[in-house]
């Protein structure tokens, strides 16, 4: 279908002026300045398509020129299904307000319908139930560029064009299913996440009801369980009671038996006591007899032993005598050798003392000499020597200074000074002021003192001179002290003293070598004392010969004595060893004798004790039985002891007789006891008492059980009443609730299944008609943006949602796109829709200055696409300026004038 002519008259601001457009089937460009009636024209077209001529709605009334009775009229000529048609609508007129004509031959029009029918026929022709919607989509009014309000008529038409189907019934069933289960947005039987059922839904209500009932049933069942447990308890209590009763009966029987048994036991115990007594008597007699026998045996043994020990002692005494003899001989020898050693030692002591005396005399002599010479010790001498060296050195210097400066040591600083290289010395005498001054200003280098002025040098020299003189005075004092007149004399004297002292020291060393400590204090007196006090007799010739001897000879003599003493000491040691051995042997024999005597003593003591015991035993036997009479006298020392006599004593014989009698009685009673011993455990009074107690205990237990049973029975009767009916009713109710839940579950799931399968089928169809449009838009988008964008996203309403950037293949939402790109995307979408919808027959598409945000470069593409699409669809572009739409080739250009 395409418009061939649009003509309006009496329309709003146009008043009685009319506008008529004659349109080509392909590309039309309507250029008109503002206020040239473009918008009025389009408003009229919209009203013609959507509104019956009989309508009196406000929008209709508004199009009547103000303050007139003019009837707004629109006349559309169009071609559809290979025929021309004309629709004329005159609004606000009482009759004959619309006419729908079909062209016949010769340019004649045949009226096909009038009035409201005309409107319907027209809509049928353009295959739309909603003319305005259809028009909306492909008419792009100013400022509404981006929003696409897809009408059903158009989508149907596109679907028809691409061969897919719509389904009104399907839509209805889908919306019914949605109403039941809801979808992700709508409230229904399922929750938004659809993982659960929504509260208030039949499923959820049934579920909750069932849970509630199950809870109630659980409570009832718990009650029943408790009831049953109580029944079990009663049953158990009854069984227990029965068991107690049986036991009670048994115990009573037991009691009678036990009482009988106890009598037997009492008799048995009586005999047992007699037997025990007999046994005790037998045991007592046996013990006495045994003790008596044992004691006699022991006494005999002990007597034997004492005899043996006495023999031993005698033999040992002989041995002791022999050992004593040997010991005394050995000791005598030893004493003699020892006396000889002491004599030798005394003589050596005398000789040593004589030697010490000699040395002491020499030392005294030397000390006297030293005293006469004056004792110059080494330390003082070194001090003086240092002083002397100092004096000599200073003198030497002074002399050197004098040589150099011709210095004469007077305090007036006179004298001569000879400078190096000068033959004539300077005369520095007073009066020769010039020289003096010159000399004063000269710097003279003194050896060891550094550079000084002559004056300073002279001052220093003077100082040294004074010091030397003082030192020389000190030295003179020393010389005077030691009676010499010069340093060499003092030195020689010092050497002499030193030599004497060394000699004295040597002598003292010799003294130290002597074998006693206080050798330094030896004098003639002490020597005499030694001799007179010594226990050894010194022969006169020995004394005289020794006194004749020199110190050296004495030393040799001492050495000889030392040797002798050494030998004698060896001899003495040997003899002492021999004697000690003999002495030891003697002691051993003595010890042995003493030990034996000790043993003998012990045995004697034991013997005494045994006799005492024997007597005690006899006393005991006597006391044990009045028949026993005789007690023989005890023999404390064992002399004359006769075992046989003891054994044949009257008492002993009586004891034997009594013992045999007791043994016989014991054996007899023990035999009796074996015969009357009752079988089984012993029954005592305690046993009987315990049995009686347990009877009472059982009685009590039985009555306790009876009480417990009574108590439980009452409760059981109460709970039993109607518990079954309560549980039964609950179970029946649960079954009903369960079935209701099953049914609700099935219904919900079936409806969800229905919704999903319907949605899936619908979406599959949508994609069938969306795809060609998407492809077409994408193709042009790529070209226009020079591959900046590769694909366009369109939702099922054909609204552009996104564009895919080629770079990184990311998707930009329409909100992220520039206004211009969005506008172009919508423009391209409309072109594609028009192109595809026009596959079977053209449809018109109207743009009212739609591309206001498009740059010239893209505008060029847009023009190209308009031309392309105009080959299939009718395109009508309204614009206020023709600049943007300068098409190459032929197109229908209409220019409107501005209204007056």
């Amino acid at each position, binding site marked *: 279908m395409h418009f061939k002519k649009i003509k309006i008259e009496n329309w709003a601001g146009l008043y009685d002026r009319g506008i008529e457009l004659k349109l080509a089937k392909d590309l039309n460009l309507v250029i008109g300045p503002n206020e040239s009636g473009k918008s009025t024209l389009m408003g009229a077209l919209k009203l013609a398509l959507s509104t019956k001529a009989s309508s009196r709605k406000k929008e209709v009334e508004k199009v009547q020129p103000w303050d007139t009775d003019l009837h707004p009229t629109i006349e559309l000529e169009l071609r559809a299904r290979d025929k021309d048609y004309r629709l004329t609508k005159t609004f606000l007129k009482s009759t004959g307000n619309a006419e729908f004509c079909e062209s016949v031959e010769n340019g004649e029009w045949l009226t096909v319908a009038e009035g409201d029918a005309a409107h319907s026929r027209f809509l049928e022709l353009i295959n739309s139930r909603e003319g305005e919607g259809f028009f909306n989509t492909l008419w792009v009014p100013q400022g509404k560029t981006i929003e696409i309000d897809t009408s059903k008529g158009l989508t149907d038409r596109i679907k028809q064009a691409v061969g897919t189907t719509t389904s009104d019934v399907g839509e209805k069933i889908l919306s019914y299913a949605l109403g039941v289960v809801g979808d992700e947005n709508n409230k229904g039987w399922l929750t938004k996440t659809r993982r659960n059922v929504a509260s208030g839904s039949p499923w959820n209500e049934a579920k909750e009801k069932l849970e509630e009932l199950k809870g109630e049933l659980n409570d009832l069942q718990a009650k029943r369980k408790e009831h049953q447990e109580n029944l079990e308890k009663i049953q158990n209590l009854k069984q227990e009671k029965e068991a107690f009763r049986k036991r009670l009966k048994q115990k009573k029987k037991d009691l009678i038996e036990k009482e009988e048994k106890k009598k037997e036991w009492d008799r048995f115990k009586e005999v047992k006591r007699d037997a025990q007594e007999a046994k005790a008597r037998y045991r007592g007699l046996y013990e006495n007899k045994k003790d008596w026998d044992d004691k006699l045996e022991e006494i005999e043994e002990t007597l034997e032993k004492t005899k043996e020990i006495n023999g031993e002692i005698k033999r040992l005494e002989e041995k002791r005598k022999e050992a004593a003899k040997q010991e005394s001989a050995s000791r005598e020898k030893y004493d003699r050798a020892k006396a000889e050693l002491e004599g030798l030692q005394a003589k050596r002591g005398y000789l040593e003392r004589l030697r010490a005396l000699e040395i002491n005399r020499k030392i005294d002599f030397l000390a006297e000499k030293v005293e006469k010479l004056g004792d110059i010790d080494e330390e003082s001498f070194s001090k003086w020597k240092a002083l002397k060296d100092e004096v000599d050195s200073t003198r030497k210097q002074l002399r050197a200074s004098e040589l150099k400066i011709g210095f004469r040591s007077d305090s007036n600083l006179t004298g001569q000074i000879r400078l190096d290289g000068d033959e004539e010395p300077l005369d520095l005498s007073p009066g020769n002021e010039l020289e003096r001054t010159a000399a004063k200003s000269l710097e003279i280098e003194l050896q060891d003192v550094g550079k000084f002025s002559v004056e300073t040098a002279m001052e220093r020299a003077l100082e040294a001179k004074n010091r030397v003189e003082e030192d020389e005075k000190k030295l003179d004092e020393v010389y005077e002290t030691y009676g010499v007149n010069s340093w060499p004399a003092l030195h020689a004297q010092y050497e002499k003293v030193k030599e004497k002292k060394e000699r004295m020291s040597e002598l003292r060393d010799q003294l130290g070598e002597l074998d006693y400590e206080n050798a330094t204090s030896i004098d003639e007196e002490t020597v005499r004392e030694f001799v007179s006090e010594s226990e050894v007799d010194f022969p006169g010739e020995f004394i005289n010969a020794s006194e004749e001897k020199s110190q050296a000879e004495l030393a040799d003599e001492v050495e000889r004595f030392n040797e002798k003493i050494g030998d004698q000491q060896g001899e003495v040691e040997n003899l002492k060893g021999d004697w000690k051995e003999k002495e030891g042997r003697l002691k051993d024999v003595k010890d042995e004798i003493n030990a034996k005597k000790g043993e003998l003593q012990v045995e004697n003591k034991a013997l005494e004790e045994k006799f005492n015991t024997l007597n005690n035993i006899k006393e005991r036997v006597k006391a044990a039985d009045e028949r026993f009479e005789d007690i023989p006298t005890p023999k404390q020392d064992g002399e004359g002891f006769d075992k046989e006599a003891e054994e044949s004593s009257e008492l002993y014989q009586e004891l034997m007789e009594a013992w045999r009698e007791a043994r016989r009685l014991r054996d007899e009673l023990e035999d009796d006891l074996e015969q009357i011993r009752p079988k089984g455990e012993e029954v005592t009074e305690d046993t009987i008492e315990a049995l009686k107690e347990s009877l009472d205990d059982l009685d009590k237990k039985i009555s306790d059980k009876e009480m417990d049973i009574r108590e439980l029975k009452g409760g059981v009767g109460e709970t039993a009443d109607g518990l079954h009916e309560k549980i039964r009713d609950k179970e029946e109710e649960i079954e009903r609730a369960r079935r209701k839940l099953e049914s609700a579950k099935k219904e919900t799931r079936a409806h969800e*299944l229905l919704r999903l399968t319907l949605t899936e089928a619908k979406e599959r169809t949508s994609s069938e008609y969306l795809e060609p449009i998407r492809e077409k838009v994408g193709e042009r988008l790529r070209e226009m943006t020079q591959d900046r964008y590769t694909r366009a996203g369109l939702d099922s309403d054909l609204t552009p949602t996104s564009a895919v950037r080629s770079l990184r293949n990311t998707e930009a939402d329409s909100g992220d796109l520039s206004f211009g790109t969005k506008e172009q995307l919508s423009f391209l979408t409309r072109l594609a829709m028009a192109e595809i919808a026009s596959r079977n027959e053209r449809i018109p598409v109207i743009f009212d200055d739609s591309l206001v945000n498009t740059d010239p470069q893209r505008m060029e593409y847009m023009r190209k696409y308009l031309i392309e699409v105009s080959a299939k669809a009718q395109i009508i572009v309204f614009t206020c300026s023709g600049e943007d739409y300068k098409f190459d080739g032929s197109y229908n250009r209409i220019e409107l004038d501005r209204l007056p």
Partner: protein
Amino acid sequence: MVKFLHTGDWQLGQTLKLVGPDRAEELRKSRLEAIENLLALARAEDVDFILSAGDNFESNQVSDGLIRKTITTLNDCSTVPIYIIPGNHDPLMEDYPFTRGVLGQLDDHIHILTEEEPVDVPQVNASIYPGICRHKKDSHSPIDWVPGRKPEDGVRVGLAHGSWQVLPELPDDDYPIAEDAATEKDLDYLALGHWHSTFSSPAESPQRTYYSGTPEPTSFNEGDSGNVLIVEIHEPKDKPQIVKQSVAKYSWAERDVGVSDEVSLEYIRDELLSLDVTPKKTLLNLDVSGTTSLEVVRLYDDLLDDLEDRFYFVRDDRTDLSLIPTDEEIQSISTGKGWLKGAVENLETLVADNCEYVPDGWPFDDPPKKEEAERALALIYTKVDEEGG
């Protein structure tokens, strides 16, 4: 000659989950009526005594009211001596209804047997040997205790509640009663309770062990319930003569029906209406199987509505009924309706493949069930119909 009526398993206070609260109450009432019937029958047949083989009550914890009603019925409706034992539903415990006490005086002709000892029936040459259930379960025979026959013994009648070991795979703690118990104990008749259908075994020779069954049916899967047995024994060791008598008010019928086409529905209708029962006193259970179309299912629903009007109660189980729409049905609901066809085809696939395919976005853990897919299809079918398409 000894003549007595054998009954048991009255199950008074029974639980009925399927029938809804009102019917359940009516059916429970009918159980007491059945007792009135059997007592009247006992009078009419002039029996010497009545034996009831346990499970007189569904549970020991029934209400005092029910016990009172029962005792009143027993007191008022007959003076024939009746001997009652406890069963596994109402074992002899402290709450056993007949001995719970304070619930009304049992008349002298009513004997509640609670001890394992022979009971001589006065003025009749017969002794009863009762087995007593003292718990819900027991793995011992309740008549183990019965002593051998003595020369002076008259007719020896065993009365017990338990499972007779003539059938395979019986639980072993359900009061087992040996297959040859009657022979072994030299009983002239062994009156059993526990199984709700009247039952005896032809393998026993001579036949003298019988289950009387419940006097009023309790469920659909009882083959032959609603009866009591009238037993006559001329002399000890004679073969008993048995006559089965129905005393039930309601019958419970169960039928397998095949649904395929409209004709099959006619057939079902005819079959059910010609059943030898009073429909208004009959509970009907239908196990439906077959493969059929949307339209036939709708017609079957209509038939069910009709049956519900005629019978006391009707239920059906459609687990084995498969719904496969015909090509015409598919066409009628999809032709000219655009993409709806796609949805129908999807659902059809689900039905045919037993839902092996799960649609995108299916929110539940388990895949859709065949019956759900069928329901979804039926919904489309109904909606299309409503839209006049």
